[in-house]
């Protein structure tokens, strides 16, 4: 055998390096094991199990004290007595057991005999039938065999049944002996059921040596009790820019009490999630196994460490707390950070699309409604929010309403005229500060007012008669103006502008004309007509014109400095032509021409036409950024400029922008037309937080269809109705569809408030509602509030009728009520009830009842057959208060007891139906005629 060549390697050196690498490997293995054993989540789980055991121990104590000690003693005594009896009977039990075995044996034996004979019988029958069918002579012998075996089968069967009966008797004897003890045991167990259950629970979470061993480093691959918890979400994905990974949420690894009741007051991360009926529970709308956690909260669900999961603090205070406690730092490179808690509702809109509001997401809904109401969505395009109405007044005929001076003073600062206005401030903001800028701003304002008036139409205006201001103030309160407006010293509706200081703004003739018919001034206005008489309109005009803002009146109007006008025009011209050409063109302009040109440029630059109808801008495109995916926009695309006093996060940028829209120009050198243009809305903190939530909710994230809350066609129609209801502010006066009317809240007697419209679709006939919406008439003569005429199109009217029908789960058919044949007896009973219950006392409008006042003026019952659905009439007569709280209509059948036992056998249901049948044929005029003749 050849010796190994020693020159190839040195054994000593090999040993040395082997030893070194072994030590290194062992050390690194130890390191790995150590790091793994020390992971945060393991400590959290241990702490949670301890907490759970403590809670369960407390529970056990309570359960144990709840157990009736005396009862337990008694039951235990009973049980041991039963045991003793049992033991004393042990011999007979043994005996019976032996008998039982013998009986079983007997059954087996007899069963074999019976089954054997039965088989023979079956086979004989088969051959007999077969041979008889084929006329085979052998049939006769089988007939004989069959006859012979039949009694034997019968006999075997009787024997088997006898054996079975014997066994049952023995068994019953045995059971009787054992029963007492079993039942006593069961009673004891039942009493201790709760404590046993808790004891088991404690056993499961209590630390023990066995568990320590299972969780020990290197052994914890077998069956550890500390484990990473996760939900794998089938239809949901995380977007890693170039790859989509299935969503896996491991949050419950630390948030162990999140879906368990009882940890509401526990420290984080163990606290129970609020509202488990809505979230996390398997029966809730958002089961954890389907929706997970990061779908709503954001963050990195794959990770199990506090920092890597991208927790986001809600404010500076929490940030400082976390830095201290967890060593928290911002995950700069991670896009999908958790939403701070105050903005969580932004995530609802990912799946809840296409609805006007998201159920229970109050903050998001407020933000959305504000964005609609303040006109944010008039300027900013957002997918899914197209086709909204312009929120500002129509300015195409502004000259007939107010003068240029008012407009320019208003534009300087709208809140100076009316602090509650929704019109934002556009000019004289912080990025236009300084004397020179102020001159430019004033020039732009004067030019804008000039343009608007120069291009205004001049529709014919009526002459306002002299009115009574005190009466006008009363009419504003009585007619229902407060459903939309705050006025006459009452803070009420905010749908329309507050009706203050109008004497400082408009002229009386215009106001009178507007009140008489708003559509005459503007075809697109949302203001309906209240069908005011001339004297009513004159009274309201007189009152509103008496309201003035003297400080505003006496304030100086802005002036257009000629140089400032020239400078701005030059800036505009230079963007299109060379400097010399621009100068030449400017020099050719007359002063008025200059102002009109600058006005046009200013309106175009500021985008006024997005919220107002302005002549000459019918086709103009909005100036603002599209926000359809703003909730996912990359952080580096947000220009924080030189603003360092806010955290550089998406939500903080948006909120700052809303609160202080020009702030990001701070410290920058920009030309007049390069500066930020978003106007200042003077939002409250609640409002800016709500709108920030709304903006964060705007994402175009692709969510699998299965995971979305998709709307059915009917639901889409309901939403279309809701949008229209929002536009017309029907809920300013009427409570329905989950909203309470402002007018109802300020009306002391609920019977005098506009009717509640819950269940309207089940109440009225579609054709009637359609006609009523287009041409309202008086239904409730006692109401001072007046249903306005909205000038709805046919499509809009049908949308509303269908909306009400669908809300009540009905489809529209416009078919009306089909009257069933009714016997003359029943009609006679209906008439008698109608008279005895004195329905006509209120439901008949006579000259004397009208003179009396409110209470005598119930709805005209001749309307019933065209207006109401017959099944609704039944429900209404049964319990009017239940359907219209505070109604003056009394119930006559409390607890379905009739006060008239002699009619229709006193059957309340039959009586109510008879009244209904009579009402559908009720015609007092015809009745009077027939009596007269």
């Amino acid at each position: 055998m050849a010796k190994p060549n020693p020159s190839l390697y040195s054994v000593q050196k090999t040993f040395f390096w082997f030893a070194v690498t072994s030590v290194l490997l062992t050390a690194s293995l130890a390191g790995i094991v150590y790091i793994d054993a020390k992971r945060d989540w393991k400590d959290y789980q241990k702490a949670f199990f301890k907490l759970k055991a403590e809670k369960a121990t407390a529970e056990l104590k309570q359960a144990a004290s709840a157990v009736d000690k005396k009862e337990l003693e008694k039951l235990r005594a009973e049980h041991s007595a039963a045991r003793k009896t049992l033991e004393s009977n042990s011999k007979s039990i043994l005996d019976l057991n032996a008998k039982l075995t013998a009986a079983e044996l007997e059954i087996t034996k007899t069963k074999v005999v019976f089954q054997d004979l039965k088989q023979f019988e079956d086979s004989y029958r088969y051959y007999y039938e077969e041979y008889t069918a084929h006329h085979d002579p052998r049939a006769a012998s089988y007939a004989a065999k069959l006859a012979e075996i039949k009694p034997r089968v019968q006999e075997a069967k009787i024997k088997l049944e006898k054996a079975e009966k014997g066994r049952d008797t023995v068994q019953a004897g045995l059971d009787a002996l054992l029963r007492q003890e079993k039942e006593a045991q069961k009673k004891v167990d039942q009493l201790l059921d709760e404590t046993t259950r808790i004891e088991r629970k404690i056993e499961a979470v209590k630390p023990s040596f066995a568990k320590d061993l299972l969780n020990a480093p290197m052994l914890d691959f077998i069956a550890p009790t500390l484990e990473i918890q996760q939900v794998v979400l089938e239809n949901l994905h995380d977007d890693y820019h170039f790859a989509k990974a299935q969503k896996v949420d491991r949050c419950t690894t630390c948030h162990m009490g999140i879906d368990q009741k009882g940890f509401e007051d526990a420290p984080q991360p163990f606290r129970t999630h609020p509202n488990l009926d809505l979230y996390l529970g398997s029966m809730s709308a958002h089961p954890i196994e389907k929706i997970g956690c990061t779908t709503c909260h954001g963050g990195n669900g794959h990770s199990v460490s506090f920092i890597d999961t991208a927790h986001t603090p809600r404010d500076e205070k929490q940030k400082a707390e976390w830095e201290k406690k967890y060593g928290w730092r911002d995950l700069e490179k991670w896009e999908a950070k958790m939403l701070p808690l105050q903005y969580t509702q932004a995530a609802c809109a990912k799946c809840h699309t296409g609805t006007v509001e998201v159920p229970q997401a109050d903050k998001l809904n407020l933000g959305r409604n504000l964005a609609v109401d303040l006109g944010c969505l008039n300027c900013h395009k957002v997918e899914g929010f197209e086709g909204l109405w312009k929120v500002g007044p129509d300015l195409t005929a502004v000259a007939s309403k107010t003068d240029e001076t008012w407009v320019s003073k208003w534009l300087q600062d709208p809140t100076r005229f009316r602090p509650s206005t929704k019109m934002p401030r556009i000019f004289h903001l912080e990025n236009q500060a300084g004397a020179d800028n102020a001159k430019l701003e004033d020039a732009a304002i004067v030019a804008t007012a000039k343009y608007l008036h120069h291009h205004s139409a001049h529709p014919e205006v009526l002459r306002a008669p002299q009115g009574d201001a005190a009466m006008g103030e009363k009419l504003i309160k009585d007619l229902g103006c407060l459903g939309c407006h705050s006025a006459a010293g009452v803070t009420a509706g905010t749908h329309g502008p507050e009706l203050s200081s109008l004497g400082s703004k408009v002229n009386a003739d215009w106001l009178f004309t507007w009140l008489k018919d708003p559509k005459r001034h503007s075809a697109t206005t949302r203001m309906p007509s209240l069908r005011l008489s001339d004297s009513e309109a004159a009274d309201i005009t007189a009152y509103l014109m008496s309201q003035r803002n003297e400080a505003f009146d006496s304030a100086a109007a802005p002036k257009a400095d000629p140089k400032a006008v020239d400078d701005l025009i030059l800036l505009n011209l230079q963007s299109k032509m060379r400097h010399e050409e621009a100068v030449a063109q400017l020099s050719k302009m007359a002063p008025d021409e200059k102002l009109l040109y600058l006005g046009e440029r200013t309106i175009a630059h500021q985008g006024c036409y997005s919220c107002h109808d302005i002549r000459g801008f019918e086709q103009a495109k909005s100036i603002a950024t599209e926000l359809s995916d703003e909730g996912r926009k990359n952080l580096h695309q947000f220009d924080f400029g030189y603003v360092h006093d806010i955290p550089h996060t998406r939500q903080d940028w948006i909120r700052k922008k809303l609160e202080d829209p020009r702030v990001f120009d701070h410290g920058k050198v920009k030309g007049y037309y390069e500066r930020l243009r978003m106007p200042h809305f003077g939002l409250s903190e609640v409002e800016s937080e709500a709108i920030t939530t709304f903006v964060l909710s705007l994402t175009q994230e692709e969510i699998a269809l299965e995971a979305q809350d998709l709307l059915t066609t009917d639901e889409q129609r309901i939403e279309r109705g809701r949008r229209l209801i929002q536009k017309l502010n029907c809920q300013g006066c009427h409570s329905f569809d989950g909203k309470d009317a402002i007018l109802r809240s300020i009306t002391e007697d609920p019977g005098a408030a506009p009717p509640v419209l819950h269940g309207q679709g089940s109440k009225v006939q579609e054709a009637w509602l359609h006609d009523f919406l287009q041409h309202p008439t008086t239904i409730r003569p006692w109401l001072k509030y007046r249903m306005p005429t909205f000038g709805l199109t046919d499509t809009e009217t049908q949308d509303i009728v269908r909306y009400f029908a669908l809300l009540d789960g009905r489809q529209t058919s416009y078919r009306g009520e089909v009257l069933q044949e009714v016997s003359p007896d029943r009609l006679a009973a209906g008439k008698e009830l109608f008279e005895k219950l004195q329905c006509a006392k209120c439901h008949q409008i006579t000259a004397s009842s009208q003179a009396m006042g409110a209470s005598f003026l119930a709805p005209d019952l001749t309307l019933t057959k065209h207006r109401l659905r017959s099944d609704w009439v039944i429900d209404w007569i049964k319990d009017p208060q239940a359907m219209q709280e505070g109604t003056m209509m009394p119930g006559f059948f409390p607890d379905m007891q009739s006060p008239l036992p002699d009619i229709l056998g006193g059957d309340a249901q039959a009586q109510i139906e008879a009244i209904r049948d009579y009402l559908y044929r009720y015609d007092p005029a015809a009745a009077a005629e027939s009596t007269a003749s």
Partner: protein
Amino acid sequence: MICSWNRATLTALLLTLFATQAQAASVSGSASFQGQAPAAEPIKMEADPSCKALHADGIAADDVIVNANGTLKNVFVYVKEGLSGKYEAPKTPVTLDQKGCMYTPKVLGVMAGQPIEIINSDSTLHNVHALPKNSPQFNLGMPLQGMKIKKTLAKPEVMVKVKCDVHPWMASYIGVLDHPFYAVTGEDGSFEIKDLPAGTYVIEAWHEKYGTQTQSITIDDSGKSDVAFQFGV
């Protein structure tokens, strides 16, 4: 069972004993009226001839009634604060009658849960429409003469208005309390609240037109205490 029954009886006996000892105290007084009594407006009952017929000589509104001795009728006086015990509502009903298209009595007190028997003594339709804020509202039609309904008001509330929507001049007020210490001033303007345990109380007097007034009083075991309320313009 027998044992526990005995104990209950004993407790009841002892309680009665204690109660009778403390029952010496009572609060009495009157509601006087200052100034010119407003002229009573006649009620126009033309709209319902059956009402009109019942008052051939006409009838005046009953919201302010100043008695001959210069006191005010229909003032509801009750202990507002200072009680600590629990009091069982009596089973015997209080009556509210609709007679001559007016409510009798105009002002009354009941305990929460105590039955109120509402009677229609007229031959015309009345509806009794109670407008409590703390208890469920009710509005029931009473079309027949002699008809009776029993209702209760579940929660304390001063005052609950009851109106008739058929006859808008009709209004009655019910003071609902969780104790029996209340009274209504009558023809002589006086009231008496009996059997009040010794202690310090806030007594409130309410009137439909003139609002409420409160006074604080301390009653010792010895007995009587006088309170005078003054209403007026």
